[in-house]
């Protein structure tokens, strides 16, 4: 894809478990363009977090990346040594985790945790001594200011437990952004937060994205969040991408029965008095999957042809979905 900052192709990440092989990410291709916000939607176990953990080189045994390419800013990340990868991680690509309380180190002050990133990556700092310490302090205060934490100078000395949930999420964003990364991967940044705080954090990410010109990959299960904050969206189901395209198209005119089902099953005031139509059944077990369409058992429009492997099909100029109903011949 043109002007792609991150381009992942045919990524396959597997976990060898005692119960069997789990293909958590099965042939996922995804591109994040410069300056855009891509939403990644899916239920638990759909592979959305593992996809981006793979990009970050954070998949640990028993998991491993089996195949695929991950190209970031012209470099193949899979070909990098652990040392080279460490230099990318935190400087060029940064990630925030869902649960800020477990992601932050409880034994270090917030200032020390921001300084850690700067120490590791920021080459513009003075080499040593008081000047370096001063510069780090100044940069840390600036970061807390950027994410909207008041009285930053005193707050730097405090520990994670002294902050509220929304504030902790901001601190994690401050740490992630300390080196002005080109790509921020935000893994469910607001799932643990209340709506009024969620609104604050999402707006903060949007503001900073505009200010720093960075790209954002926003992992979420909330289609409302995607509708309001993302340029493009990718829907994942059982380890595969089932639909991707511009947000307005995917949400306004979804092509995959799973996306359609998800949208139809969100209870909302506009549907008062009407029955909601939940998607019946459950996400299939990822062990021993048949080659058929993974949504087959829950799909209301399933037919025999769905029992063969289904590829992504073009549903519009930039809109693709993994369903045989697309393309006219079955409609």
């Amino acid at each position, binding site marked *: 894809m043109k002007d792609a900052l991150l381009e992942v192709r045919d990524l396959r990440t597997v976990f060898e478990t005692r119960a069997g092989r789990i293909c958590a990410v099965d042939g996922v291709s995804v591109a994040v363009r410069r300056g855009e916000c891509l939403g990644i939607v899916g239920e638990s176990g759909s592979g959305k977090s593992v996809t981006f953990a793979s990009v970050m080189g954070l998949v640990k045994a028993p998991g491993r990346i089996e195949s695929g390419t991950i190209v970031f800013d012209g470099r193949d990340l899979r070909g990098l040594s652990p040392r080279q990868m460490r230099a990318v991680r935190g400087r060029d690509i940064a990630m925030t985790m869902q649960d800020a309380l477990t992601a932050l180190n409880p034994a270090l002050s917030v200032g020390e945790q921001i300084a850690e990133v700067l120490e590791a990556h920021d080459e513009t700092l003075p080499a040593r001594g008081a000047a370096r310490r001063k510069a780090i302090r100044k940069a840390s205060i600036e970061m807390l200011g950027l994410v909207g934490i008041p009285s930053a100078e005193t707050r730097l000395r405090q520990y994670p437990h002294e902050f509220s949930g929304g504030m902790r999420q901001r601190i994690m964003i401050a740490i992630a952004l300390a080196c002005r990364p080109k790509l921020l991967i935000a893994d469910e940044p607001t799932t643990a937060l209340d*709506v*009024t705080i969620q609104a604050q954090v999402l*707006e903060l990410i949007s503001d900073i994205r505009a200010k720093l010109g960075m790209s954002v990959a926003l992992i979420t299960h909330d289609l*409302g969040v995607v*509708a309001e904050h993302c340029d493009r969206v990718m829907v994942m189901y059982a380890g595969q991408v089932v639909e991707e395209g511009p947000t307005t198209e995917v949400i306004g005119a979804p092509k995959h029965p799973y996306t359609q089902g998800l949208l139809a099953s969100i209870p*909302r005031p506009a549907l*008062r008095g009407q029955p909601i*139509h939940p998607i019946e059944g*459950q996400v299939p077990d990822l062990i021993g999957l048949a080659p058929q369409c993974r949504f087959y058992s829950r799909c209301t429009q399933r037919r025999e042809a769905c029992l063969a492997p289904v590829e992504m099909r073009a549903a519009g100029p930039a809109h693709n979905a993994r369903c045989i109903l697309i393309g006219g011949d079955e409609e």
Partner: protein
Amino acid sequence: MSLLKVEGLSKHYEGRRGIFDRLTGAKHTVVRAVNEINLTVEKGEILGLIGESGCGKSTLGRAILRLHEPTRGEVTFDGTEVTALDAAALKAMRRRMQIIFQDPYACLNPRRTVAEIVGLPLKLHGLAANDAELREKVAAICAKVGLKPGQIDRYPHQFSGGQRQRIGIARALISHPEFIVCDEPVSALDVSIQAQIIALLLELKREMGLTYLFISHDISVIGYLADRVAVMYLGEIVEMGPVEQILANPRHPYTQSLMSAVPEVDHAGRNKRIRLAGDLPSPLNPPKGCKFHTRCPLAIDACRSQQPGAETVGPGHTAACHRLAENLSLLDETQA
């Protein structure tokens, strides 16, 4: 007459006093988790209780059932004062008032089978003459909530989150209660499973003539299923009324900002967002006057000193705000 009437209900928690505090005669720190709540629930309706974490909505639900003993106030259920019952009478009353918990992973005993978990209320209330009848009743209710007959001898860990929530629902329903506190029954579940459970709860309500107090932080869910809504902030109800009224014409600035903060698929980019500054204040040291004044863009001097009382603003619609008469809306103000 209302099925459930709650008057002046409070639940306060006293902090522990260490030896230093006792020697110096320091006062107990008191968390007013639920403070002077008045509400009614009519037979057959769904009252939605909405608020952010820490606002006291779950504590209120539990205080109504006396799972947490209220500090003050009265709860009357179908003409009986629940708060005055002794232990034996309360136990009998619990058959008629049940609860469904938020976390389907924490609320089921991992060492009991589904049949044991769901059958326990029957045993406690002596509702089954023998084991065969008990099993029959368990199988019937399990079928009703969508569990397969072969599954009732399994243990909770063998089920997914949605299935476990169905077990919790079966346990609440087996004694044929009239009133159920649904304490965030869907917030731990995935979107497609949420819809299944909501559809199930609505179907059961219709079929069994149930009344729900539905606690949630999700306005979309409440807007979809509730008949009336109560909005809580720091232990108090700030606004209450018919759901259409609250959605179309919220009068309390907190309700307005809560509404505007919800990202919605339908209104992408259209709804004006009110930016609330800061976090929920600590309930240990709540602000004086109106508890919302520290975050309220409309706060005036009166809000900082006097607590506003609930005023009627429409049929069955009340709100507690000093500036109701001026008919201000944050939604207009931010657009200007």
